[in-house]
């Protein structure tokens, strides 16, 4: 109930602030342009259209978009002093964090759903592998959830939104680069291990390849749960400052 109240306010906030619309526009523009390029290349017969193309664009774009979507979540509450009211309302820290995270994830889900337009275009001009696309979409949806959880954590760390966004971009960038590092490490065991720790590692070679594996789902779910728990502890620590 309280989670729902917080969630609703968060979603409303996304729809009533121009900033969130700008992010949505940027995401659609970026994916649209890249999709168009990909399509024209395919038309010239240079490549085939990758059914996981749009989700894979997201996998990098999220390094920047997730922090922008989440930097406000808890940092603003602290700056405006509303955190004090939240923490003195009959609401536990878990509901606060969960409501906020789910609000961000919901908004991301809508953004992602908008890009289905491109899949429909694709469907009308060719016979793409729908199963493969769907798998990639589910993957990027979970991947997105995990990046948003990272952003939520950093938003609880500071009351400065810019700092929060900056720190989570760095963290996500490291997680992203970790994947590339994992790909070039000569020692296979170490490489595997590094890759299992990165967000990309559970997307690029499985979901993106049309491979749906329980362990990848569990990885993202686990990341989300752990990060949200840490965030909750951070929020609770406001009481001790």
């Amino acid at each position, binding site marked *: 109930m309280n989670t729902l109240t917080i969630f609703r306010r968060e979603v*409303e*906030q996304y729809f009533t602030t121009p900033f969130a619309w700008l992010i949505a526009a940027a995401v659609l523009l970026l994916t649209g342009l890249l999709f168009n390029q990909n399509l024209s290349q395919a038309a010239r017969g240079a490549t085939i259209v990758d059914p996981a193309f749009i989700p894979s664009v997201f996998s990098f774009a999220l390094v920047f978009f997730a922090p922008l979507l989440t930097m406000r979540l808890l940092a603003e509450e602290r700056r*405006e002093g509303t*955190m004090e009211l939240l923490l*003195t309302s009959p609401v536990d820290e878990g509901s606060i964090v969960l409501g906020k995270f789910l609000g961000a994830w919901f908004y991301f889900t809508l953004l992602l759903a908008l890009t289905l337009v491109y899949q429909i275009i694709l469907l009308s001009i060719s016979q793409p592998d729908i199963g493969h696309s769907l798998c990639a979409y589910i993957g990027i949806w979970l991947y997105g959830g995990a990046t948003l959880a990272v952003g939520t954590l950093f938003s609880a760390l500071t009351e400065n939104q810019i700092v929060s966004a900056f720190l989570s971009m760095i963290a996500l960038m490291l997680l992203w680069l970790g994947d590339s590092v994992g790909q070039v490490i000569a020692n296979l065991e170490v490489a595997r291990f590094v890759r299992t720790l990165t967000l990309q590692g559970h997307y690029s070679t499985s979901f993106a390849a049309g491979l749906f594996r329980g362990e990848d789902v569990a990885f993202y779910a686990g990341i989300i749960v752990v990060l949200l728990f840490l965030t909750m502890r951070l929020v609770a620590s406001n009481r001790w400052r």
Partner: protein
Amino acid sequence: MIEVKGLTKRYGDRLAVDHLSFTAKPGEVLGLLGPNGAGKTTTMRMLTGYLPPTEGSASIAGYDILEDSMEARRRVGYLPERVPLYPDMTVRGYVTFWARLRGIRSPRKHVNAALERVHLMDRQNQLVRNLSKGLRQRLGLAQALVHNPAVIILDEPTIGIDPQQVIEVRESVRALGKEHTVLFSTHILSEAEHVCDRVLIINKGRVIAQGKPADLRRQMEPKTQLYVVVGGASGKAARQLLSAIPGVLAVERDGDGYSLTVEGDRDLRGEVSSHVMQAGYTLLEIRQATTSLEDIFLEIVGKSR
């Protein structure tokens, strides 16, 4: 109903609230009066469940703030020192949000009542960011009373708003006191006197005086002060002469003349002037010094240092 027993808060080795005990009854506005840093905000933060006390206990409407935290919090309306706002929400949306979080399922009626109460009904669809400071304060008040809590805690709600708005907020607080237990903090003595049924004067986290404003005033009223300038007498002679007058308790040098502390609220101007003349000196100046309540307050606060 608020019951506080031995409530203590330490920040590191700084003692912010020092074994505070008091009770506030329903239908009463209890004032916490004290200078900056006295521990008012810290006390309120403990009562609202924001900060855990280092020692001691307190209960809100019979619920212990630590053991029954959620039940206690449900029964409190709180307006922190800096009004917490969501600038992008509408006035109505803001109050509705807080009503829901305080457990009101269909908040429409509650929200209407709260907005009526603080006279913000005609602005219900405005964005919070566009409200003036005084209106924001009233919105903060609406949020604190929307769930009709047993206890309302207001931390210096008149700070930084214009005089007309101050009067309105004070009136609202008085009105709230008729149905709720209100804890109200201020560092302005005359405000405490206007608004509160009972006042606790605190300094350095400790209660240094308490009672009804009128009683406090009587208790605190220092003995009347007379200011006298005597011509033609040496300092020693003048001092001797003045302290010999019956009813004069103390004589202190004060600029050109002397400050006399007089017993009770007697008017000794006649006696003093006749004594001075009889001794063959001239009375250059005599006046009764009036101490403002503000001075008295500063004085007791000063004494407790």
